[in-house]
Structure formats: C-alpha cells, structure tokens
C-alpha cells in the first residue's frame, strides 16, 4: 500500500501519522523526543514502518513539522506546525462540521488558530518564548505533587472542598507557589484544579485576541486531560471538540499536506 | 507629446507666471492705447478709473446696476444684471480663479512688492490660524455691502430714507485699484480726499487709509489685500463652473506640507485635506505654486476640461529645487 507520512517533532514527543490515498489514517505512533531529535525521529519512524509492515519505498511523500522539523533532512517538505495543525483539525472534525477555532497545547507552546470559511489558517496567536501555561507547566505540577501527568485528570474530579487558587502562570514562579500551598496544607486535588484553571485562564486570554467561534477544536497531549478540558470549557463558556487521539492532529495535518503537495508536483511534472 | 508634457511638468511655474503677469498687467493698464478691449465685465480689477484700460472690472458695473428700485427688478434693467453676470461668467470659466493669480493687476503689484522684499532679505509676516479664519469673512461682508448700499440708494430704508448718491460705487471708493492703478498713467488725482460732502470725505479718507495699508501690508504679507477682496468671494460662488481646475489625489499625499509652505494665501487644506478631490478654497488664486512644490507624482494636478495640463512630478520637483 502506498502511503503519505507526516511527522511532528515536538519538544516532548515525536508523533507520526501515515495516511492512504483516501486520507484515512493507516497507522500512528507517539514516542518521546529525548535529546537527539534526528536519531530518535528516525528510530521512531523505522519502528512504526516495521510494526505496520510497510516498505520505505511505499512512502510517496514525507512532510515534517514541529519544533525540530528542519533537522529532518529526509523530509520532502517542511511545514510549520500552525498550518499543519489547522489542516489536521479541519479534516479530523469534518464529520461534525466546520472548525472555526483551534486551541493547541504543546510541550512548550500554546496556540490559538482561527480558520476562515475555506478552512485556511486566518489569524493565529502563540505564546512567545515564555512557556507559561503549556505542557511543561502540567509536567512540573505532576512532578511537584509526586504523581504522573496522566493522573492529573483523575485528581481533578476527586476534589472535595475548595480548589486552591494559583495566581502565577509562570512555570518557575508557580512551582514555588505550589510548594507554599502544600506547606499551608492544601489538598493535592485542590492544587491540581487550581493549576488547570490557571492554564485555562491563560488560554482564554490568548485566544480571545483572535476571536472565538464554534466549532472549537482542542488538541495536543494535554487535551487528553479531562480535568483541563472541563476548566477550559468553563473559562470560555463554550463546548470543546476533542478528537479521539488529540496529540496526533498536527502530524495528521502534515500527512495531508504531504499528499496534496505530492499531487501538485505530479501535475507540474 | 510625451516630451512636451515632460517639459511642461518640469517647468518653473514661477517664471512662467512672472512673465504672464507682466503681459496681463500691461494689457489691462494700457490695452486701450493699442485698441485692446476685452470686455466690460472682467472678473478682475481692470479699473475704469484708468485712462485707457484693456477692459473693465465687473464689480463697478455691478454696483451701478444694483442702484435699482425694487419695482424695476422685473424689467429690462433687472435683466441687465443677469446678462452682465453671464458676461462675467463667460470670461470667468476659462481661467476660473486663476484670474486672481495670473491676471489681476492688484495681485501682480502685490507679488512685485514681495519680490522687492525678498531681494532686500526682509522676512515675511503671517497670520495665525485664528486670525486667518476671522479675516476670511471680511470679503463676504464687503460683497454684501457693495450690493446692499446701491440698493439703499435706489430704495428707501425704513427710518433712514434713501441714501444719497454720494454713497455710489462704495467699494470702488475704498478699493486700492482706484487709488493705485492710475499712478501707472501718471495720474495721482485719486490720491486725494474729497471734501465736497461728508459721505464723500469719509469714503475717500477710507480709500486713502486702505491704500496706505495696502502698501505696507503687501510688502510684509504676501497677497495681503486678496484676503479681503469681494471679487474673490464673488468668483468663489461660481467656482464649480470653471473649466480650469486644481485637483488633489489625497491617497498620494504624505502631508509633508510643502504645498502649504508655498501657498501665498496660507490655505491649510491644500496640505491637510486628503479626502476631497476639489481642493480650491475661497482664498485660492490658482497660482499653482503648490503644484510646483509637490514632490509626489500626480498628487496635485491642474486640469482644463478634465484634461491634465500640469501636474506634480518628482522629477519636476527635484529640478526646481536645485
């Protein structure tokens, strides 16, 4: 089977999606990025091919995106994660309607994208060098509370009593704030809820700059955290659409772009 | 054709205007000697007090024609007012307000005073924005008076009665055209005060005062008298009929103010108005110095019958400033 590949080299994990000619996802994987971007991406790619029993020659086109996109010299095309995310989100939610707003939380960034009628990326916002309110923030919280990131959602819904209020969105300042909250005897659950709302507030402030319209698509690893989703929904007072595998949307978008670029080149050739 | 347009756009409008004004000046002051007679209803100060002018000023006739009893308005005499205005317009439409900037002998004289001042290296004076706005109104008051007073001679004003014939041609009595232009015929007789009646004395005295102010004012302030000129006010009513136009393309304007600096009349809108195409204000005398001073390609244009005959060009600007 001939496939198109999209690879999203993010700051925390490498996501790979393979699609077929009719734009269906054939296979996908998520692996940690680690410190050697290039080697780890190639390894992840290789193991996915082996797992799915696909030959390298069957890959018609490979598009890379994400923070480390330029390092992957093997890619036929590099594309920014904002465009890839918009394309992926539009396609993923096709069955329920037209996506107008995309919220993405990555390992070290926070993005809001507004799509125009045709699904092109219209306006977008992104945090600058500060990693406040990103996946890093959740990781730090989990580490400080001696738990893992995927347990945070569970803790969120176990809250009995009042949530703690976290005023700081800065990852560095928030850490000391959490420690002082612990020292004052606040519950872990309360702190987690506080952290979720703190991130949600920052997201709301950021994406209000581009205007919020339904359908709102929420993706990236942290979108798997149900507690965070609830917090964001409450802050925006709107419902969010979460795809089945939220972390691979951008890689899926890259694969879709790979397919369309391949066809365009075919036409020209 | 292209070469001609280029030549015209690069030309120094100052020099062209200087010579045009001299020719116009001589035709108006001495035209009669060469049997030149361009009409009785000229939209410029061609003073009838001159020996043999090349034409006569519309305003004098207008004042005479308005010495008219109300019941005679619908009559042959009333019709004369309309026909005279039509004659006025027949001349006016060709040059529009450029009659002031290129033909008017009083205007030309003032420009010569300015030249002398510049040669002497003496700085000019200017009105402040506020004063400017106040002074602008005077010409309309004068225009109203030069029609109302003649009406007052022919008709009885309740409580005052009819004005005496000494009030005749009131504007001419205070116009510097009457006192100054005959000097070019060697005639100084208008520079006197007429003591024959109280009214005449007051009027001729005012005329002398205006003449004094005219000399002093025009020396320090460019086109000093033109702010007060009722002819300019009258022309402005008909400016839409003019075939010669000054137009501005506001989208090309950077508001650099070069045109405003060049404007002898100190019209702010020329630089600040980027909305209106038609930029001619009541004080404008269409000298087109602003067009010559504009560095933006095609921002200011002179059109005749909607055809551009002169426009601002970068090259022209550069050539002229060198």
């Amino acid at each position, binding site marked *: 089977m001939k496939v198109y590949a999209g690879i999203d080299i993010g700051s925390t994990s490498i996501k790979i999606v393979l699609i077929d000619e009719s734009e269906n996802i054939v296979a996908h994987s998520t692996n940690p990025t680690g410190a050697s971007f290039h080697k780890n991406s190639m390894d992840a790619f290789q193991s996915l091919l082996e797992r799915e029993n696909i030959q390298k020659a069957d890959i018609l086109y490979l598009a890379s995106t994400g923070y480390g996109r330029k390092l992957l010299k093997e890619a036929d095309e590099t594309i920014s994660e904002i465009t890839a995310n918009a394309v992926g989100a539009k396609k993923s939610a096709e069955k329920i309607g037209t996506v107008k707003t995309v919220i993405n939380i990555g390992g070290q960034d926070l993005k809001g994208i507004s799509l125009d009628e045709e699904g092109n990326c219209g306006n977008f916002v992104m945090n600058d060098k500060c990693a406040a309110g990103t996946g890093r923030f959740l990781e730090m919280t989990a580490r400080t509370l001696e738990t893992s990131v995927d347990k945070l959602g569970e803790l969120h819904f176990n809250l009995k009593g009042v949530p703690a209020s976290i005023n700081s969105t800065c990852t560095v300042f928030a850490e000391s704030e959490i420690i002082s909250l612990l020292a004052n005897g606040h519950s872990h659950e309360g702190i987690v809820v506080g952290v979720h709302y703190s991130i949600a507030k920052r997201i709301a402030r950021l994406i209000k700059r581009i205007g919020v319209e339904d359908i709102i698509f929420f993706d990236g690893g942290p979108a798997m955290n149900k507690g965070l989703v609830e917090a964001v929904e409450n802050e925006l007072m709107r419902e969010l659409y979460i795809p089945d595998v939220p972390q691979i949307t951008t890689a899926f978008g890259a694969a879709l772009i790979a397919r369309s670029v391949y066809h365009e080149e075919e036409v020209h050739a | 054709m292209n070469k001609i347009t280029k030549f015209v756009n690069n030309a120094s409008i100052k020099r062209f205007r200087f010579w045009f004004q001299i020719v116009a000046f001589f035709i108006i002051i001495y035209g009669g000697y060469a049997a030149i007679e361009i009409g009785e209803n000229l939209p410029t100060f061609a003073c009838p007090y001159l020996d043999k002018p090349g034409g006569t000023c519309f305003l004098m006739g207008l004042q005479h024609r308005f010495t008219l009893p109300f019941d005679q308005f619908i009559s042959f005499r009333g019709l004369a007012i309309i026909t005279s205005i039509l004659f006025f317009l027949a001349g006016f439409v060709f040059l529009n307000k450029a009659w002031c900037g290129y033909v008017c002998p009083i205007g030309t004289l003032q420009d010569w005073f300015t030249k002398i001042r510049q040669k002497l290296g003496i700085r000019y004076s200017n009105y402040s924005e506020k004063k400017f706005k106040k002074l602008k109104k005077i010409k309309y008051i004068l225009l109203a008076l030069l029609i109302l007073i003649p009406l007052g001679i022919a008709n009885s004003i309740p409580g005052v009665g009819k004005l005496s014939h000494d009030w005749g041609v009131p504007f001419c009595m205070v116009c510097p055209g009457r006192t100054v232009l005959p000097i070019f015929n060697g005639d100084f007789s208008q520079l006197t005060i007429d003591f024959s009646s109280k009214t005449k004395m007051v009027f001729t005295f005012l005329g002398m005062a205006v003449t004094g102010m005219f000399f002093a004012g025009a020396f320090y302030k460019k086109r000093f008298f033109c702010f007060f000129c009722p002819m300019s006010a009258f022309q402005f009513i008909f400016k839409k009929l003019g075939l010669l136009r000054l137009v501005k393309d506001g*989208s*090309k304007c950077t508001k650099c103010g070069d045109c405003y*600096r060049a404007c002898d009349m100190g019209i702010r809108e020329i630089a600040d108005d980027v909305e209106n195409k038609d930029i001619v204000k009541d004080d404008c005398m269409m000298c087109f110095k602003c067009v010559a001073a504009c560095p933006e390609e095609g921002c200011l244009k002179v059109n005749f019958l909607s055809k551009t005959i002169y426009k601002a060009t970068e090259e022209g600007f550069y050539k002229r400033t060198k």
Partner: protein
Amino acid sequence: MEKERIEKVKKHIRTEAALEAGQVLKKITDNFPDNPEGMKYFYDLLSRQFSEEILPKNGKKLIGTMCVQVPDELILAAGAKPVRVCSGSFPYDNAGAEFMPAKTCSMIKAIMGLFQVEDFREKFDMLVIPTTCDQKKKTTEILKDMGYEAYSLAMPSRKDDDNSRYYWQNSVKEFAADLMKKTGNKITKESLKKAFDLKNEARYEFRRLFKLRMKNPAVIYGKDAFLIANAYFTDDIESWTAALKKLNDELEKKVEEGFSVANAKVPRFLFTGSPPIFPNMKIPLLVEEAGGLIAIDEVCSSSRLLYDMPSYDEQGLYDMIPAIADCYLKPCTCPCFVPNEERKDKISNLIDMFNIDGVIYQAFSGCQLYEMEQKLIGNFLMKKGVPMLYIESDYSPEDTGQLSTRVEAFIESIKMKKKSSAAKKEENKKDKK
C-alpha cells in the same frame, strides 16, 4: 588594577559586538544568492561601524543624533558631520541592561551600553536627542549625567495644529543657533542651501531605490534595503549618495535584463513598527530566509528616513529653517505623535503601491508606543483585509525558534490564500468562457 579589569570587560563586549556584526553580515551575504555588486560598499561599511575611520577627519565636529526628527541639514550647514547613534547590537544591549531599568526597550539599552562601553566623550561634540518617546527623553539626562554633551531637542506631541508647528519651528531655530555656537561656524543661507541640495540628492537616490522596490518580481531583498538605510547613519552623505546611485544604476540594468531575486509568487510583505537597526536584522532575516520578501517597510531606520523632501519658498534663513522644521514634523509617522492617522494612511498607500500580501509588525518589548499602536494598526488592516503578524521581540536571539514557526505559518497561510484566490480567478475565467 580595577581600571585594567574594566578595560578587559569593555574589550570583551567590543569583541562580542564585532563578532555579532560579522555573523549577521555573513548570514546576509551567504544565505542569499545574487547579492548586487553595488551592495559591497554597504556591507563593507557596516562591518566597520563606529570604528575610527568612520569618524570625520580634517577637524570636522561630530554631532551624534537619535531619531529621524533631527534635521541633518542644519548640522551639515554648520560644517559638522551628523552620525545617528541608534544601535542594534545585542552585546551593547546587555551592557546597557546592567544599569537601565528592566523594561527599557532594547534599542535604548543598546545605545546606553554603547556610550558606557565606548568612551565617546571626546569624539562627539554633541548628542542631539529629540523629545520623542519617554525613554529617549530620559536618555538625554542619563547621558548628561555620564558626562556627555547631550542636547534635548523639544518636540511637540501633536503635529496637526499651528501651536505645535510653531513650537517645533522655534525649537529648530534655537537648535540652529546652538549649533552655530557649538561648532563656531555660521549657518548662512548659502551653506544651508548647499546642505539642502546634498540631502535632497540623497533623497532623490533613495526615492529611486524606493521605486525600484515596487517592481514585482523584486530586484532587491528587503534586508539589503535596510542595510543601505543603516549605512546612512554613519556614512558621509556624498559618498553614500554616490554608492547608492551606482547600486540604483546596476539594479535598473538588472530590471531591463529581466533579473529578479524572487518570483511573482513569493509573498510580499510590508514591515513596520520598531526599527530594525544593524546588526539586529532578526525578524527581516527570518522572513526572507523563510521565503518571504520584505518589499517595503514603514520604519524610522529605513523608508521614513529619507523619503519626504522639504522645499522652501524664499531663499532666506527665515523661510528655509521653518521649511526644514516642517518636513521633519508634519509627515513623520512616529507613534510618539497623537493623532497619528497619517501612519495608517501611509501603510495603506504602501500596501497598494507595492502589491503587499501581508504586514509584519515588530514591537520591541518595552516600546510602549509601538506596542499600543499595534492594536490600532491591526484593526485598520483587518478592515482593509490585509493580514498582519504582530511580533513582540527584542535583540536577544533566544526566541528565534518560536518566531520562525510563527513567521513560517504566516507565510504559509498567505501562500494558501494566494493559491485559493488564484484558483478562484481561474474558475471565474472558465465560467465566463
């Protein structure tokens, strides 16, 4: 001992600054093909920025200036050399950060760092700083405190009424008088006329380049255009004009030959906001390396610098000096003025004239005026239907990763829009047939 240590630190900063300038120049020259022959002069000049040979010889006084509003003509007429000292250097920015408040903009910090590290007290006879933004205003006092001869050139905050106009004219007149005292040379109408002509010649060439940049496909990159204007900061005006004339001739020939640096499909951008000053070419380079083209800019370090031409009506100082003053006030689109509708008009005109697909708006963090005016320009552009990318940044290279993602996404979105609008046009054509 202490003195030696300080000298060592200064030397280190100087080396770092030279290194940075070298690296940026290398990027500018090596990462792009077909650099024009005529650009060599400017590359070379910038590599020697603020070195001894740039400073004037034969006893000419040196007057440092900041901001575009300082009338160079007067300085030239007084027989001195004007040098604009606004700096774009990150090492000097760091040096300035040591004693300036944290929220100061990078440019101010870099200027202060430069004047702290390099002992310019002997070299500059005067530093002229207009009262544009609050940070520049206070800079004057701090420089004075450091022992510099700093001169505050009073500017009004408005430019649309006569009060401000006369206020500014008077302040320029006073400046002319003070310059005469400082330099010991008289400004006469002859010397001013000469300075006028010199600067107008420079402006004429600058406008030629401006028109060349309108060509689509483009003949010159935006990065080069920035460098040309930057070179004007320190160069002798005659040699700068001559070098630009040569470059313009070369480019005109290239246009005739059908040469271009970017095809007509490349998205064309207008750059506005805080000024990129060499070596801080971070954003322009990001844009052009990612496949965009900065077709034109609206910044005080480039197209605002030499565009507007003054003209006077009467040749006498009483008319010439106010004419110069007017030219530096009325058309200026610095956000330090209220109201500043002219900036919107100008941006809008440039967009139409240069076939612009998108606007890139840079604001230095800490530059309140540009940060705040961003909203106004953004709203205006939204109504006009031109997309804008707003970037808040400073001189440090640490945010390049994030910035390149944003810049690339912006370029991609414009490419997509162009593609779909081109497709629509095709369809319309077909329908008509």
